[in-house]
C-alpha cells in the first residue's frame, strides 16, 4: 500500500548517534542523493571532540544535519523536521532542535538501562510521556538489522556496523528518494579493502526501505522537488575540498608549482590530505615537523619561484607568525590558510568560531600589514583562495585566507566553473639583468621583482633586517625605515583596486545594514531575504576582503541608520569598522562554537526595525 505523498518546499533531517554509529556517513549519503536529484542542500556536521568519548556518553554524540530544498537555501536549518537518534545520548543532545510535531525516529534497542544512565535520563523518555509533542517512532533498529543480515557471514558486531544504512533506507523511503546513488557509493567505497561488506550494507539499506514500505509506520511520505539552479554542471562540495580545488586551480592557471607545507591540525588537515592526492598536477605536499617548518618550506619555495602555501588553524597560526612576518618584509608571494576553530588555546578543536581575525591582522611584531580574505560559504572557498593566490602572486606579498570549521566541513551544491572563465593569474619572473634591483618596484602594484634563484645575473640577497629602498641592502637609516614601512602599507592599500564595488543585497539604503564576513553569510542572507521580501529597508553586505576594506565601504555604511555586525567572536570586525569609520556599529556576538541560527538574527533585528 503506497502512502500519501505530500509536496513540501524543504526539509531538515538530523542524524545523530555515537561517534561509531556512522551518522556522518549516512548524512553525507543523504546529502549526495538530495543534491543529485536537484535539491539545494546545506549541511552541518557536528563532531564530538577529536578523541573518542565513552560509548553512549553525551560527549560522544556525533550529529549530521542536512537541509534540502526546492528553493535556494543558505543554512542547514535552525530546527529539524526529522531527528534520527541512535541512542539516548543522541536524543538528549539534539531533541531541542526538533520542531514541534516533528518526526523522531529512535533505535529502541538502545534505550536500555545502561544507555539511559549514561545519557543522564532518570526515566525512559520513550515511556514517561516527555516526548508527547513529537511523532515518535521507536524502531528496534539493531534487531531488525541483524535479522535482515541473518544470512550473511558477518559476526554480530560487523552486522551492527551496517545498521546506519538501515536507518538511511528508512529516510530515503520517507522522502521518496532513490537508493541507487547510495548503492553505487557503497560498491566503490568498500571495493578495495572490504569487499565482503558491500552486500550486507546494501542489504541493510534495502531492509530499512522495505521495513517502511511493509509496515504502517509513516502515514505520509514527503517529496521535495528539485530547486531551480542556473544552468550548468553541479557537484556537491565541502569547504575544505573547495579550498583544495581552488589551490590546485590557482597553481594550474598560474603555471606555478604548488608547494604546500603543513602540519596536521583539526580542521585544516583535510587540505593536506586533499592536496597530497594530486601529485599528477605536480603538487608537492610536505608534512613538516611543526607549523614553523611548514611555513618555512612554503617561504623557501616562494623564494625559489613556486606558489608557496601553508595551512593550519589558530594555534598553528600563532606559531607561524614570526615566519609570516619574514615573508612580509621579504615581500614574497605566500598564501596562508587559517581554518579557524574555537579557541582560545586548544579550545574546542571540533567547533567553529571566527575569533582569529585580529590575530591574523596584528599577530606579528612591528608594522606588518597583510591582505586578508575570508570565504563566506563552502563553494566560496574555491573563489576566495584562488583570489588569494592571484593577489599574492601579483603583489608579491603573503595573503591570509580565512575559512572556518563550519564552512570547511559543511557542503552545498557547486556550479563547476569553466576553467576558461577563471580569472587570469599572470606570473612574471624577472629575468632582465640591466637595471635589476631587488626592491625596485612596479609602480602600479608596488610589487618588487620576483627574481628566482637559477636566473643568471640576478644574484641577490634578502632577509629579515630592514632593507634599503630599491637596493634591498641592510639599512638602519631612520628615514628609509619610515619609507619602507609606508611602502609596505601602501602596497596592501592598493589591493583595494582589485575589489569590485560593494554588492549590497536588499535595500540599497535605509534602516539597517547587516555587515558580515565569513561563514555567517548563510544565516544573514536568509534573514535579509525574508525581511526584505516583507518590505523592510534592510540590506546585507558581506565582506570578502577584511584588509584592505573596499574603497566604497564607508559610503555604503553611511547610507543606513544602523550597522549591525553579527560575528562568532566578541566583535573583531566591529572594532575595525568603528575605528576606521567612527560609526557606532553594533554587534551581535555568539561564542558557542556553533553557527548562528536564523532566528537568533531575526530576534536581534527586531531591536532595530519595527514595522
Amino acid at each position, binding site marked *: 500500500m503506497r502512502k500519501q505523498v505530500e509536496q513540501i518546499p524543504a526539509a531538515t533531517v538530523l542524524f545523530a548517534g555515537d561517534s561509531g554509529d556512522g551518522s556522518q556517513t549516512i548524512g553525507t549519503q543523504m546529502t549526495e542523493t538530495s543534491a543529485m536529484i536537484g535539491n539545494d542542500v546545506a549541511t552541518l556536521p557536528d563532531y564530538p571532540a577529536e578523541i573518542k568519548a565513552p560509548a553512549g556518553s553525551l560527549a560522544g554524540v556525533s550529529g549530521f544535519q542536512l537541509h534540502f530544498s526546492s528553493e535556494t537555501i543558505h543554512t542547514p536549518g535552525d530546527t529539524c523536521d526529522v531527528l534520527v537518534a541512535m541512542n539516548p545520548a543522541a536524543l538528549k543532545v539534539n531533541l531541542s532542535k526538533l520542531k514541534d510535531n516533528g518526526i523522531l525516529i529512535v533505535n529502541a534497542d538502545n534505550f536500555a538501562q545502561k544507555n539511559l544512565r549514561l545519557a543522564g535520563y532518570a526515566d525512559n523518555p520513550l515511556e514517561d510521556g516527555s516526548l508527547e509533542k513529537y511523532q515518535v517512532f521507536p524502531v528496534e533498529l539493531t534487531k531488525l538489522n541483524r535479522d535482515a543480515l541473518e544470512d550473511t557471514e558477518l559476526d554480530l558486531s560487523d552486522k551492527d556496523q551496517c545498521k546506519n544504512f538501515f536507518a538511511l533506507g528508512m529516510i530515503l523511503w520517507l522522502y521518496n528518494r532513490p537508493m541507487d546513488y547510495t548503492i553505487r557509493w557503497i560498491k566503490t567505497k568498500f571495493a578495495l579493502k572490504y569487499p565482503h561488506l558491500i552486500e550486507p550494507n546494501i542489504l541493510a539499506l534495502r531492509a530499512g526501505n522495505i521495513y517502511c514500505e511493509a509496515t504502517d509506520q509513516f502515514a505520509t511520505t514527503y517529496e521535495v522537488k528539485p530547486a531551480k539552479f542556473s544552468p550548468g554542471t553541479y557537484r556537491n562540495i565541502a569547504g575544505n575540498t573547495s579550498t583544495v580545488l581552488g589551490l590546485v586551480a590557482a597553481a*594550474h592557471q598560474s603555471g606555478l608549482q604548488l608547494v604546500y607545507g603543513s602540519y596536521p591540525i583539526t580542521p585544516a588537515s583535510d587540505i593536506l590530505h586533499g592536496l597530497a592526492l594530486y601529485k599528477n598536477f605536480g603538487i608537492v605536499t610536505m608534512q613538516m615537523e611543526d607549523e614553523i617548518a611548514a611555513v618555512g618550506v612554503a*617561504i*623557501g619555495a616562494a623564494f625559489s*619561484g613556486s606558489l608557496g602555501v601553508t595551512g593550519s588553524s589558530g594555534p598553528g597560526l600563532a606559531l607561524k607568525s614570526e615566519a609570516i612576518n619574514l615573508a612580509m618584509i621579504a615581500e614574497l608571494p605566500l598564501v596562508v590558510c587559517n581554518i579557524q576553530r574555537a579557541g582560545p588555546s586548544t579550545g574546542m578543536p571540533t567547533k567553529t568560531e571566527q575569533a582569529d581575525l585580529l590575530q591574523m591582522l596584528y599577530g606579528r611584531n612591528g608594522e606588518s600589514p597583510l591582505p586578508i580574505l575570508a570565504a563566506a560559504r563552502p563553494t566560496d572557498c574555491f573563489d576566495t583562495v584562488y583570489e588569494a593566490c592571484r593577489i599574492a602572486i601579483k603583489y608579491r606579498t603573503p595573503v591570509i585566507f580565512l575559512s572556518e570549521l563550519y564552512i570547511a566541513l559543511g557542503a552545498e551544491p557547486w556550479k563547476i566553473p569553466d576553467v576558461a572563465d577563471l580569472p587570469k593569474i599572470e606570473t612574471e619572473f624577472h629575468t632582465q639583468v640591466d637595471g635589476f634591483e631587488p626592491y625596485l618596484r612596479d609602480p602600479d602594484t608596488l610589487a618588487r621583482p620576483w627574481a628566482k634563484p637559477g636566473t643568471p645575473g640576478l644574484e641577490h640577497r634578502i632577509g629579515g633586517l630592514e632593507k634599503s629602498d630599491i637596493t634591498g641592502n641592510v639599512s638602519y637609516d631612520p628615514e628609509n625605515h619610515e619609507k619602507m614601512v609606508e611602502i609596505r602599507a601602501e602596497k596592501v592599500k592598493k589591493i583595494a583596486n582589485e575589489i569590485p564595488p560593494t554588492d549590497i543585497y536588499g535595500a540599497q539604503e535605509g534602516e539597517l545594514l547587516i555587515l558580515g564576513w565569513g561563514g555567517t553569510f548563510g544565516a544573514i542572507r536568509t534573514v535579509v531575504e525574508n525581511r526584505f521580501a516583507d518590505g523592510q529597508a534592510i540590506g546585507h553586505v558581506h565582506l570578502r576582503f577584511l584588509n584592505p576594506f573596499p574603497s566604497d565601504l564607508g559610503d555604503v555604511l553611511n547610507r543606513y541608520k544602523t550597522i549591525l555586525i553579527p560575528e562568532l567572536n566578541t566583535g573583531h570586525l566591529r572594532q575595525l569598522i568603528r575605528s576606521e569609520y567612527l560609526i557606532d556599529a553594533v554587534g551581535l556576538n555568539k561564542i558557542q562554537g556553533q553557527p548562528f541560527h536564523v532566528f537568533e538574527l531575526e530576534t536581534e533585528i527586531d531591536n532595530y526595525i519595527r514595522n
Partner: protein
Amino acid sequence: MKSKRASGIPRGVPTLTQKDFTTDQDPRWCPGCGDYSILAQTRRIMPELGIPRENIVFISGIGCSSRFPYYMNTYGFHTIHGRAPTIASGVKMANPDLSVWVITGDGDALSIGGNHFIHLMRRNFDINVLLFNNRIYGLTKGQYSPTSEQGKSTKSSPFGSLETPFNPISLALSAGATFVSRSLDTDTQHLRSIIKAAFEHKGTSFIEIYQNCNIFNDGTFFPYTKKETKADNTVFLEHGEPLVFGLESDKGIELNNFQPEVTTVSNGTENLIVHDQFAENTTLANFLARMSDMPDMPHPIGIFRSVQHTCYEDLMTDQIAAAKQQRGEGDLDALLHAGDTWIVE
C-alpha cells in the same frame, strides 16, 4: 627507498674565480673572527665545484655567522633565528637543481633550531650545512650556547652554566645524517677539502666547524687549532686508515671492550681502530663522535660518516613522475568535475 631520479645538481666546467663570489658588502665581523677564514675558504672552493653562480643559494638563520650570505655573490636569504633548514628545504624542493647551503651557528642550529636541524638530517635533502661552532652566542654578545662546556661563566650564567653540552656530531648521527664531518676555521686546506666533499655528497651534508670567537670566547678551540697543541689533541680521520695522531704520528687508538685507549704506534698498529666512513652501521661513527667528550682523548677531525641514501627531493620527484605516468598530467577540468555531478539545463 631508492629513487629513479639519478641526476644531481647540474655542473659545468669551472670558469669562475674567487672574486666572482665576492659581493660589494664589507663583512661585519670583529677583526680576528674565525668567520673570515671560513668565508675565504668558501669563496676559494666555490669555483672548483663548477656550478654556475646563479644556481647557488646560501640560506642562514640569525647570528654573527648567519651574516654570511651577504658576502657571497650568489642568491642568498638571511632568514630568522633557527629556521634556515626549513627555508632551505623549501628552496631545494621547489628546485632540486639548485646547490643549497645552510649557514648556521651553534645557537641557531642547536638551540632554537634544534628540531629543524635533526629533521633536516633525517629527510636527507641534498643540502650542505655549515655550522660555525664557537660555543657562544656571538651576536647577542656572549651568552653560553648549547655547545658551551658545563660550568661556563657568561653574562647569562655568572655562576656557571648547568647544562651538559650537545655533541653536534653525535646529534647529527642519531638523527640519521648521511654525511657528518668536522673541520677547523684555521686549517684552511682541510676546511676546503671538507666543503668540497660535502658538496660532492648527495644528501644532507653536515660540517661542524670549530670557530674562534675572539671577542666572547677566545681560545676555546686553541688546543685543537694551534700549531703547538693541535697534533696531540686531534686525530684526522682517513677512510681505511688506522687512528694515529701526535706530533710524531706516534700515538694510536685501540678499543677494548667499548673503551678507547691510547697506545704507542711503535708497539704495532694491528689493534688500532681502522676508520670506515662508509659504514651504514653507525656504531663506529658514534664512538668517534663521543671520543671528543672523553678526557685526554683527541678530537676527531674529518669525515665521520658518508653513506648514500636517497634524497627527499628525488623521492618526491619520483612520486610526481609516477603519478603523472599513472594518471596522466593533471587535467584541471576533469578534476573539477570529479565525483558525482549533475547537469542543470
